[in-house]
């Protein structure tokens, strides 16, 4: 009987990363660079921006006259599109070692269920966030981080940690990012569905921007949590590692919400409030590219370090 066993499958281990032992197969997957993850992330951002452009352009050109029911149906369809775009790009790219479709879909649905059953009721019905969070700038920032940020990021963390995390399919650090992104998109989809239903349908042009901003933001901050989860599984990390990860994601989430509010709300005049949702989209796209790029660069660096140590 060998002294050490693989931390993923339990087979005899031959290599180690940090304090964790791996069999040859899982050592290979743990140290493999998944370049497609970069490409799917960039394609997600580009694809979503193109999607916004198409819907916005069609809305301007055709000026469709929908009945209230059709508006709700169109809104519901739009709310689902960002998740479909991500999954489509992900599977086109992820041919080398595809993650099980059922697991990705399951994590996505769990994210959606927890958002609907826990996240939204906590934010809206227990904390009544909209009633006090805009009192002043400090309250907006702190409330966005401590209430909205922590609730959303904890739930996305919980979805991955208490489902796929202990599975043998979670066999490399990048999987943390992939599954957490799926959970984040599930959460975003429910937020968008709620927005459509609460407003009894939405104007296609402006609402598609909002939906894509929500999807990009939720996916990006979930990616941060996923990075910390991935490293926590394959390296011996101190007890404060994961709390730091959740807190960082919550802070980014809260600051993004505050900054987006500042950018989107141009001002209030006697004729009404004017907004510019495009600036929110630009911010979300930049944040998504930077956060995903940074996370994947960090994972790549860790792999190189592990290989160099071997």
């Amino acid at each position: 009987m060998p002294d050490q066993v693989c931390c993923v499958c339990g087979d005899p281990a031959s290599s180690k990363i940090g304090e964790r032992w791996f069999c040859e197969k899982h050592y290979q997957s743990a140290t493999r660079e998944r370049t497609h993850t970069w490409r799917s992330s960039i394609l997600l951002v580009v694809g979503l921006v193109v999607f916004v452009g198409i819907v916005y352009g069609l809305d301007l050109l055709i000026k469709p006259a929908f009945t209230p029911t059709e508006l709700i149906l169109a809104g519901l369809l739009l709310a689902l599109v960002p998740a479909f775009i991500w999954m489509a790009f992900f599977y086109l790219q992820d041919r080398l070692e595809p993650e099980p479709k059922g697991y990705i879909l399951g994590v996505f649905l769990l994210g959606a269920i927890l958002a609907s059953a826990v996240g939204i009721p906590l934010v809206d019905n227990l904390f009544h966030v909209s009633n006090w969070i805009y009192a002043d700038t400090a309250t907006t920032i702190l409330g966005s981080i401590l209430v909205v940020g922590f609730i959303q990021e904890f739930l996305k963390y919980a979805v991955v940690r208490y489902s796929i995390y202990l599975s043998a399919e979670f066999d490399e650090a990048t999987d943390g990012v992939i599954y957490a992104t799926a959970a984040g998109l599930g959460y975003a989809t429910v937020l968008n569905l709620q927005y459509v239903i609460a407003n009894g349908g939405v104007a296609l042009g402006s609402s598609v921007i909002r939906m894509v901003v929500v999807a990009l933001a939720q996916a990006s901050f979930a990616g941060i949590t996923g990075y910390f989860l991935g490293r926590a599984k394959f390296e011996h990390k101190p007890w404060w590692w994961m709390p730091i990860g959740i807190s960082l994601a919550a802070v980014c989430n809260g600051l993004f919400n505050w900054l987006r509010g500042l950018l989107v709300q141009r001002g209030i005049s006697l004729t009404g409030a004017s907004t510019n949702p495009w600036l929110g989209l630009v911010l979300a796209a930049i944040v998504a590219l930077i956060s995903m790029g940074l996370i994947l660069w960090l994972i790549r660096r860790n792999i190189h370090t592990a290989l160099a140590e071997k």
Partner: protein
Amino acid sequence: MSATTLPSKNNSLGQRFADWAVIVVTLVGLLAGWLIKNSVENRSIPFTNSGISAQIPQGWLMTSAQGNEILHVTDPLSSGFGTTYTIEIMPVASEATVDQVVTQLTLQRGQTLTAYRVLEQQKVTVFGRAAYEIGYVYVESNPNLTHNQIPNIVRGLDYIFLNGDHAIVAAYWVDEKAFDSDLGRFHRFLNSLKF
């Protein structure tokens, strides 16, 4: 030879500790958020008029008082119907009973509020003072016929305090969905009422 457990299948002590640490940090964050919420909702500014003083919520919009009202403030951030507090001074005959004042106020509300219905009424003690409580509901609708919003269902609470030749009526109007959640703040307002 040493037996090594599988980190992927079993939660090590360190992993369990980290899981609890995440839960604790999240709860601490939410608790801090709750304290900020309470602090924002409890911010108040003093109000004094006609010998009546109270602490009204900070940041609320003070609109022009109508009729016998001396105070009319509305929360600009509440969704649906804006939560409103009013204080009204009703002149009454010195020998008037509280039942007569209640009847007079009920008739007045019935004439001015759409679909006004009394839900309950009773004698109560409000922070050591004898008062009469009337709970009711009415419909608030924009009078503009081209306005395409569904009217709001509003819950109301009136507290009537007899004070010599006048009655002081402190009223709480709120969207029916927010009645319970906003009630605590109104009680703090009532507690601050001095005359």
